[in-house]
């Protein structure tokens, strides 16, 4: 069997060599005949080589036999050693089991106690990591860590001092959580700078400094100002707390010990919200700004015209700087006209004034109608995005759909935010311009009649 493998290997090696030599010679061959010639020569050389190898193998065979004998000897020795060691191991095992049993018997109820101590130490450690009291008293958890580890290993026993230390830490946490403490500490402000500030701690609930809420980050043992603070009403109570040293103050505390406050950071700001609206949102904002500018211009000019018309109503002489004055001048321009002609001339001059008073008011009206429509457009495009996300990723993850949905909703909001003031403004402007037109249309003739009667 062994011989056969040897032969096979030799054959394989020979074949590989032929292939190599043919490969190198084939490069020099000028034509096919020459190549064939070279191949034949190569075969002769190969057979010679193979014969030489076979002779070599036969010569080494006795050497291999000696090696084999040596290996078998070695194996027998090792087997003997192994059985010896196995016996020893079993003896040891037995002794160990006896010793452990004895230990357990002697430990008795202490074993349970150590288990409880380990569990309590672990629980307390994780509790201390989340507690804001650690901001005031640092380095408590390293002791607990060591303690829990030593309780976990069987080789070490807890000393009375260590157990009392655990009790002390638990009691201290409990006592401190009922107090409002004030201490100096380095804090990280919202812009990243570090300063030392007087921090007030409310039980185990909140940290407050300079009227701002703080959070305790256990990983870096740092106290940082919350990037986004709660609404002013709560901030005022925090400010009050920082400013008073004793006496009672109302304070808005986060009963979860900071986790509700930390969620504030995840809510997007107004700016980010507007950005969610996408291009449609920006178009709505642009339209709203245009409407606002027009409205401001109209408000100012209508206010000025209204004031001038009011002054004209009281004044005796018609003046050229206001619509009513220009209409009243018609009477002076045609002193000899009869009543019907005068009426025609009056209505003609009124018709000249009306477009000036009502110009651009339609644009505001249109904006108030169009803005919600564009918002609707944004809603539909947002929903298209959402459904695209659904076709790609399925409905499994609501987070993937959130982008499209927020675009849909934000554009609707923007549309309404623009439309609502525009409706209000357009009503105000319309009332004002209609008031002036009313004076022109229905009262100008009356005023003229009144004056002519008084003059007569």
């Amino acid at each position, binding site marked *: 069997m062994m011989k056969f493998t040897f032969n096979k290997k030799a054959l394989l090696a020979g074949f590989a060599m032929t292939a190599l030599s043919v490969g190198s010679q084939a490069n020099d061959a000028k034509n096919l005949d020459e190549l064939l010639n070279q191949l034949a020569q190569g075969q002769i050389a190969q057979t010679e080589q193979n014969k030489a190898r076979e002779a070599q193998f036969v010569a080494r065979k006795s050497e291999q036999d000696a090696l084999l004998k040596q290996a078998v000897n070695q194996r027998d020795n090792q087997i003997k050693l192994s059985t010896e060691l196995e016996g020893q191991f079993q003896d040891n095992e037995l002794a160990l089991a006896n010793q452990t049993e004895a230990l357990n018997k002697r430990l008795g109820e202490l074993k349970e106690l150590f288990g409880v101590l380990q569990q309590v130490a672990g629980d307390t450690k994780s509790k201390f990591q989340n507690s804001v009291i650690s901001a005031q008293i640092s380095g408590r958890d390293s002791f607990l860590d060591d303690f829990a580890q030593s309780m976990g290993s069987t080789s070490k026993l807890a000393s009375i001092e260590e157990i009392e230390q655990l009790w002390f830490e638990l009691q201290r946490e409990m006592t401190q959580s009922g107090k409002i403490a004030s201490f100096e500490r380095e804090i990280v402000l919202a812009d990243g700078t570090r300063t030392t500030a007087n921090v007030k701690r409310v039980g185990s609930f909140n940290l407050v400094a300079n009227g701002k809420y703080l959070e305790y980050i256990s990983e870096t043992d740092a106290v940082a100002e919350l990037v986004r603070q709660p609404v002013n009403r709560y901030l005022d109570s925090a400010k009050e707390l920082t400013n008073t040293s004793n006496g009672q103050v109302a304070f808005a505390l986060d009963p979860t010990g900071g986790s509700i406050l930390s969620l504030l950071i995840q809510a*997007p700001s107004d700016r980010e919200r507007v950005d969610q609206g996408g291009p449609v949102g920006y178009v709505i904002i642009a339209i709203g700004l245009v409407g606002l500018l027009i409205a401001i211009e109209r408000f100012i000019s209508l206010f000025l015209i209204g004031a001038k018309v009011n002054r004209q109503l009281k004044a005796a002489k018609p003046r050229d700087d206001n619509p009513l004055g220009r209409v009243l001048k018609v009477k002076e321009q045609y002193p000899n006209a009869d009543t019907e002609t005068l009426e025609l001339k009056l209505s003609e001059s009124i018709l000249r004034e009306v477009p000036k008073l009502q110009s651009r008011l339609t644009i505001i009206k249109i904006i108030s109608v169009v803005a919600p429509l564009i918002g609707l457009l944004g809603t539909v495009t947002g929903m298209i995005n959402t459904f695209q996300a659904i076709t790609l990723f399925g409905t499994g*993850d609501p987070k993937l759909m959130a982008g499209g949905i927020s675009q849909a*909703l934000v554009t609707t909001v923007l549309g*309404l935010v623009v439309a*609502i003031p525009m409706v*209000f403004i357009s*009503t105000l402007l319309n009332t004002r311009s209609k008031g002036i037109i009313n004076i022109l249309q229905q009262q100008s*003739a009356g005023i003229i009649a009144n004056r*002519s*009667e008084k003059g007569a």
Partner: protein
Amino acid sequence: MILFIDMMNSIREFLDTGGQVLTVIAAVIALMWLLIFERLAFVLFGYRAMKNNIVNRWFAREERRSWNAEQIRMATVSKASSALNHNIALIQSLVVLCPLLGLLGTVTGMIEVFDVMAISGSGNARSMASGVSRATIPTMAGMVGSLSGVFMVTYFQRYAKRQTELLEDKLLMQH
């Protein structure tokens, strides 16, 4: 006093659950009812004196048949009509604004619901409840506000129209 503080607290809580939009709606409704009360005061007390004054002045005229008289009559009626219609358009636009603001509240509330969904990643009904209440309370408030105003506005419009016609009938011309 304690009752008052209690009341203020519950109102504040209601406004908090409704969100910022509810505050705006409250302001709009307050403004609307302020204007409505001003109108009511005018209808009940101001207008009667004004009408008597106009009618007396008209009949104090010696001459009530010329073109001049006709124009003066028209001017008087239009002045009275504009006094009657004062602020009504504004009230009406506020009535229209209320449901629009309610809709705004609905959408902002829905945004909050989807924010919660995006953060928590699941449809936890309890965590979405605050958003849902912010979506529904403003809608309700907007509806209630506009309904409360609609009746008054219609009444004022009809009153102004009727009184204008009555005044026109009263100021008779001599033929």
